[in-house]
């Protein structure tokens, strides 16, 4: 009598005993191949042996053999399931992670804080209908100064210490690094035959000045210009009020005080109430105890500049403002020294 001829019951008992010995996935696979394998699994052979049985016993033998097969298949499935459960359990217990270990660093870049601030400012003004334009950083003196009502030998030129480009045209020095974005008032109006103009012009400016914690010789400005019939100084205040609230909190207040820029009349500076101490702190580092923070210069576009653009200054009025982006960035993050921005130390830049 061959092994395959062993009785189904004996075979089942032997198979189940072997199954209980199998404790991992490879052992289970070996067991499955040995017992239930399609080619020569012992239960497969048993089923094949049905044909060898005397005809009158075939049905019973077949039934018994099938029952063994089903039993073993069920036992295998159960065994597989319990092993899977055990493995999962092990994952949660013996293989549990120390989740306080650090995550693997991923490459993540950031925008420069000046870019971030610039974009936030631009967005605030775009929401109020301002278009965006840009102009050259190397500029003609005619745009930077003369068109802005600061001809040569005008004391207003002291307000901007100019870096001049070393190029002579017809024996004259005419090219400079723009000291402010204001020349773009003239540039934008020049290419706009008819109002309305409602534009901001962001960009870098340059000043010949010594650097310290609050002064940097390369700076980023946003020029704002709105020109149309019916543009009023109160609109200027409204726009800047919106801006201050968008950038520094809904409860901001703004005030104007008198200032002078040759290209506006009246000219003002805008301050907002201190968003750190809310006007209460004599020791406040942000507003130096004054309760107010100077933000920008602004005013109503001088009628002469409106006329130079070819508009009728008796009907058309406008406002302009110039905003220092680094200053806004310093304020919003409480940065103590403007020189950090262009030192490009990743220990600084990586924080924003």
């Amino acid at each position, binding site marked *: 009598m061959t092994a395959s001829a062993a009785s189904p019951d004996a075979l089942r008992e032997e198979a189940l005993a072997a199954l209980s010995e199998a404790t991992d996935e490879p052992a289970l696979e070996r067991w499955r191949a040995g017992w239930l394998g399609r080619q020569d699994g012992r239960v497969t052979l048993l089923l094949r042996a049905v044909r060898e049985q005397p005809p009158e016993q075939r049905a019973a033998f077949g039934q018994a053999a099938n029952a063994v097969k089903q039993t073993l298949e069920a036992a295998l499935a159960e065994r597989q399931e319990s092993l899977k459960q055990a493995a999962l359990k092990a994952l949660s217990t013996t293989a549990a992670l120390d989740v306080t270990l650090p995550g693997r660093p991923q490459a993540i870049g950031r925008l420069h804080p000046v870019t971030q601030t610039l974009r936030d400012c631009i967005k605030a003004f775009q929401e109020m209908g301002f278009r965006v334009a840009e102009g050259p950083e190397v500029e003609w003196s005619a745009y930077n100064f003369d068109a802005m009502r600061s001809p040569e030998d005008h004391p207003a030129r002291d307000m901007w210490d100019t870096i001049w480009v070393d190029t002579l045209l017809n024996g004259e020095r005419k090219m400079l690094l723009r000291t402010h974005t204001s020349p773009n008032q003239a540039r934008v109006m020049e290419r706009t035959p008819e109002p309305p103009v409602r534009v901001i012009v962001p960009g870098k400016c340059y000043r010949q000045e010594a650097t310290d914690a609050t002064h940097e010789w390369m700076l980023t400005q946003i020029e704002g210009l709105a020109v149309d019939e019916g543009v*009023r100084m109160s609109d200027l205040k409204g726009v800047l009020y919106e801006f201050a609230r968008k950038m520094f909190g809904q409860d901001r207040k703004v005030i104007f005080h008198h200032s002078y820029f040759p290209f506006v*009349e009246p000219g003002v500076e805008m301050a907002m109430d201190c968003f750190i101490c809310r006007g209460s702190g004599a020791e406040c580092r942000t507003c130096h105890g004054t309760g107010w923070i100077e933000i920008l210069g602004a005013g109503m576009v001088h009628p002469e500049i409106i006329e130079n653009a070819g508009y009728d200054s008796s009907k058309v009025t406008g406002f302009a403002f110039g905003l220092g982006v680094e200053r806004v960035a310093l304020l919003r993050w409480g940065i103590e020294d403007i020189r950090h921005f262009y030192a490009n130390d990743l220990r600084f830049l990586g924080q924003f």
Partner: protein
Amino acid sequence: MKLLLSWLREFVDVDLPVPELARRLIDATAEVEGWETIGAGWDPERIRVAQVVAVEPHPNADRLRLATVETGSGLQQVVCGAPNIAAGQKVAFATEGAVLIDGHTGETAKLKLRPIRGVESAGMVLSEKELGLSDSHEGILVLPDDAVVGRPLVEQLGDVLFDISTWANRADLLGVLGLAREVSALVSRPLREPSTEYSEAGPPTESLASVTVQDPDLCPRFMVSVIQDVTLGPSPAWMQERLLRHGMRPINNVVDITNYVMIETGQPLHAFDYDLVRGKQLIARRAVPGEKLVTLDGVEREFDGQMVLVCDGEGPVSVAGVMGGGNSEVSESTRTILLEAANWVPGNIRRTSMYLKLRSEASLRFEKGLGPEMAEFALKRALHLFEQLTGGTVSRGVIDVYPGKRPPRTIILPAARIEQVLGYAIGPDEVRRILSDLGFLCHHLPPDRYSVQPPYWRPDVLIADDLIEDVARIHGYDKLPATKLRGSLPEPEPRPVEDLRERVRDLAVGLGFQEIITYSLTEKQKLERVVAPGDVRRMAPLSVVNPVAARHTYLRTSLRAGLLETYAANRRQHDGPLRMFEVGQEFLPVEADLPHERKVFCALAGGTREARWAKAGDDRLDFFDAKGAAEAVLGALGVPGTFAAANEFGLLEGHTARVASGKQPVGVVAQVHPDTAAAFDIDEPVFMVELWLEDLVRVLPERPAYLAPSRFPEMRHDLALLIDTATPAVRLVDIVRSHRSGTVRITADIFDEYRGRGVPEGKKSLAVAVRYQAEDRTLTDEEVARIETGLLKRLEKELGAVRR
């Protein structure tokens, strides 16, 4: 400009608390930078005015004396070491407990009395230093005779000194009187002008001197007067005190009066020694180029033909509006004064002082534009003081050459313009009140206009909007409402390059690169390390005349130098990977025009990959990381890019690829040449991606090429193919992509390159994933096998590729 509160109060009654006054001035007039309270620490109980009644020698010390002082509440005896103490003087007297500055150590301490050389002292007679007024500790402070005995010193001598920055268009505010006019309007109190009265007891001025204005275009007005029999000496204490507070050194009564009147009125004056003025005549004229004069500061100045000089009968005696000459300077022996009060064209004075690098108190005022009538007021004010303080006799009448005389300006201000500009109306009473308080003649022309004449000290006021500013600022900007902009919006201007720039910025950040912003100005040597010698434009960067530092002299023609510098600086602080980029402008010179500001993206990467704890390896970033970043950016933009081996200055040959899209070059990916990197102090492989935004924008598709995802599965079959090492892998990929078999789309991705054991010499093995996709059906194995056979044949024929 400094401003003493006591001086201001001479002209206007102002009793606002100091911080409030400062705030009002800031809101409406000028920037108050700060203020200093003189006498803030003087205890009113313990430091008072006293009078010295008697002075006797100290019984036990030669250099000490015993003084008896009347304190207002009885006589006291004190020991005093000051050499200048004398009976009859009014002095500052401190009693025990007063907080003083120690005359020797300079530190603050409470006064403790103890016997000095055996004699009790009831208090202390104070020096300026002990009161913190000055560093003078030579003798005691002697108060004016009218000081009130027993009065707290802080009431007698206390004051507030403001530090004020005025705006460039307001020369009148560089005088106490000008600021007083503003305060008078701000607080609605009348202004008291200082006295200009004097008697003209001398001979007619014309008989003593003459004036010629040769260049009336530069000298609108020139006035002189003569003061005879002047007694030169120190000016009175109150005048010296005020001059010192305003930063001017007292010299003698004559010079001090001219300086005092300048601070008071804003109008500079000049006093000549009459006897040194040759020919007793003054001529205002342009300099002869090359003409010279030694100015009062002892420096010889040379002039060009646009500068104006004041000359006497023989030559220059003063640089008009800037500084006087040494040859006619007032001295001990001066007995007669020729006093000049003139007006000069602002731009010319500014030019002269800039060219001579000589900025004086006078030039700072003239260059801002003084009204010509200010000369007359200041001259008369000075003559009043000369008569009072020098004992001199003023000549009769003044010589007044006034070629620039203009009729008074009248400005029409339509009432509606106020609301048009400001957005709110200000009533006629308030408009008239403000303008009148500021010295304007203002007539309401009912119903809706004002006729306004600006006062002589306000040459800055020219148009209606100038008046609106004056009304608005004095009225108060706190009353300005905040309104919403009305009206239509302008047409948008397309900005394709700028839009692309912002997309690239965001993509670079997403790929792990940190944005940096470097200075646009750099050094030529640094540019020369990264710019090819043959690149004529980039090798000729524009320079600036007056850089903030030598290392910021040249406008960059490449972003690479700044990035490499930044990379090196950060490598000192960081292990691990560095990835950084800048989006900025190259400034490429253009003949006779502004430079082309070319927008470029440039990125660097290098170092070991992110530390992977619990995983082995110190795998470094390499060329293919940089190329991968470039591909990712181009991919996200929908720009199909090609990479071809290239050789460029500053980049490592064999590790450099020119990036293009179609025929358009758009950038470069490379390992920076190790020598170039080393020149920037980088001693590791560093890789660069540069994309030229203005070129890239030309090949930027308006929208990505869209392909609907197939409903049928894609078949992938991996191949290992041997090709010549010299054959670029991209050729294999291109052939596969171009292979056609009905509607089946075939793509190939190389996922490995292998050379070495098992691969014949001169060959490389490429592992390629070939993908087959039909739009309309699921491909069968047989179909794929058939296509593959054809593909392999073609690869063998065109590339000599064989399966490994």
